[in-house]
């Protein structure tokens, strides 16, 4: 991940209501967690951070993964993750020049198309399953996603 990507992630994360976000890609793992409010109890599991690469540097070494199990990311209270049902490439709009299907802040209805995941040259439209507001877009346009990877965080209505 580049510094710019991390800055963008932080901006999106701060603007959203998401409490904790973990992204793992190509051997690097980054976890962002909002400072706990008074009285909240958090299970703290420090995640090893991959060395941040500067633009001129070669690809960073993969982060050593602990053998002990780590939990996949959980959405903040009352929010729901839209997770990828397949492996493929995430596209936020129907065509390169078209506007994204949804933006952060949009209201969505069940059945409304949120994004496309391309797999083996087939474009799969991914619909929302609930009514609510898009609180965060968690996948990057044109980048690979795996099964179960969070794509959006939705605040149900």
């Amino acid at each position, binding site marked *: 991940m580049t510094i710019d990507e991390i800055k963008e992630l932080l901006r999106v994360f701060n603007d959203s209501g998401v409490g904790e976000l973990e992204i793992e890609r190509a051997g690097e793992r980054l976890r962002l967690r909002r400072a706990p409010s008074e009285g909240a109890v958090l299970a703290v599991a420090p995640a090893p951070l991959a060395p941040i690469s500067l633009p001129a540097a070669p690809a960073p070494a993969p982060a050593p*993964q602990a*053998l*002990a*199990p780590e939990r996949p990311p959980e959405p903040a209270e009352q929010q729901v993750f839209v997770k990828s049902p397949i492996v493929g490439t995430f596209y936020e709009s129907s065509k390169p020049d078209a506007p994204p299907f949804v933006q952060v802040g949009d209201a969505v209805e069940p059945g409304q198309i949120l994004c496309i995941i391309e797999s083996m040259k087939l474009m799969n439209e991914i619909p929302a399953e609930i009514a609510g507001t898009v609180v965060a877009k968690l996948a990057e346009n044109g980048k690979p996603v795996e*099964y*179960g990877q969070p794509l959006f965080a939705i605040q149900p209505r």
Partner: protein
Amino acid sequence: MFKKILIANRGEIALRVICACKDLGIKTVAVYSEADRHGLHTRFADEAICIGPASSAKSYLDVPSVISAAEITNAEAVHPGYGFLSENADFAEVCETSGLKFIGPSPEVIRRMGLKQVARAAMNEAGVPVLVGSKDVVANLEEASAIAEKIGYPVMLKASAGGGGRGMRIVRNAADLAALLPQAQAEAAAAFSCGDVYMEKLLENPRHIEFQVLADQHGNVAILGERECSIQRRHQKLIEEAPSTAVSAELRIRISDGLRDALKTIGYTNAGTVEFLMDAGGNLYFIEVNARIQVEHPVTEMVTGADLVKGQILVAAGYKLDEILPFDPGSPPLRGHAIECRINAEHPETFTPCPGRIAGLNLPGGPGIRIDTAAYTDGVIPPYYDSLVAKLIAWGANREEARARMLRALDMFVVDGVQTSIPLHQRILNHPDFIAGRLDTGFLERTAVTGPHSRDI
């Protein structure tokens, strides 16, 4: 040479392929189901992609998920391991059309070898001895009856399109044939979408002996000796060894020559295993071809010095056998003796599967010991896949030394938290029949090593 290979498997075989790729400087992509999120193969591959939920059908067997994972990681080749998609000709074909090299035989060869009756006919034509039986698929009861009379009961009905014991029925006399034939056909249809069955003479308590094949893409075929896999329970192998005490040098050469010709004619490439049964008279009869790398490949590696999985990758990359094998492919060495125990997470007497968390693990070392495993302390054996904890392999200068080393290693192999088959392996290896090499597929029943608590063999 490939730059990146995706491993379409899990557990110890995924790690085995990672080993070969690391040796060759090839990057690896692991795929995993949600149940295998902390599987060891995800840690040691360069990249890991979650491809589905725990169910095999929706993850490791899901062709679009596996292909998609290869696409998004830019893998150039796919190694299917054993089980799962390894003998799925459709998957091998989809790999090809997706621009991925499938590390195994061609789709056509996989398809042909998967039709047991076709493989049998091909071997027969090449002069490899086959069990007397029907020339083709048995069309109806009349035909079955006539063939059975000619062969002589007892006979075995077997599914043409698959194995693993499904679609198989033992028919001991003419009176039972009318009931059992439709049963076999229905089971075959349900399991393999093809109700075709053929018939073979039944050998009572044969020895199970198989030959290892490695063929390059230039028409060269090497036969790398045999393995004895007679100690089984319900068609699942428990202990394998190389070489077999029942195969003389002369028999080995004769069968190897026949197989080399047969497989060249078939156009076989990459790794494979040719299975035989041996009758009480010491005669070998062809049963089937497994067009993949097998679980027990390490015992062949130990006695020949070949690295079979590395060999698979090099074959797929276009290398020739004499570049791949560290010896003359026409006369593989046979040095010492190797035994493998499949240590499963099961009750050693009742065989109830015992998935769970490994609380403590000690893997034995010492001379002549090799362990292929994906187990680790705090690791989990999930209930969705096979129950293999580890493959424990012992090599010795002779069979007795291998056996003694295996017993030593079993003694020092500690798995806390799940029950394992270690006590069963110890009893088998200490049994006078095993020591004397008196092996056959009825071994467990005959020797009653499973003990008084076992409900059935």
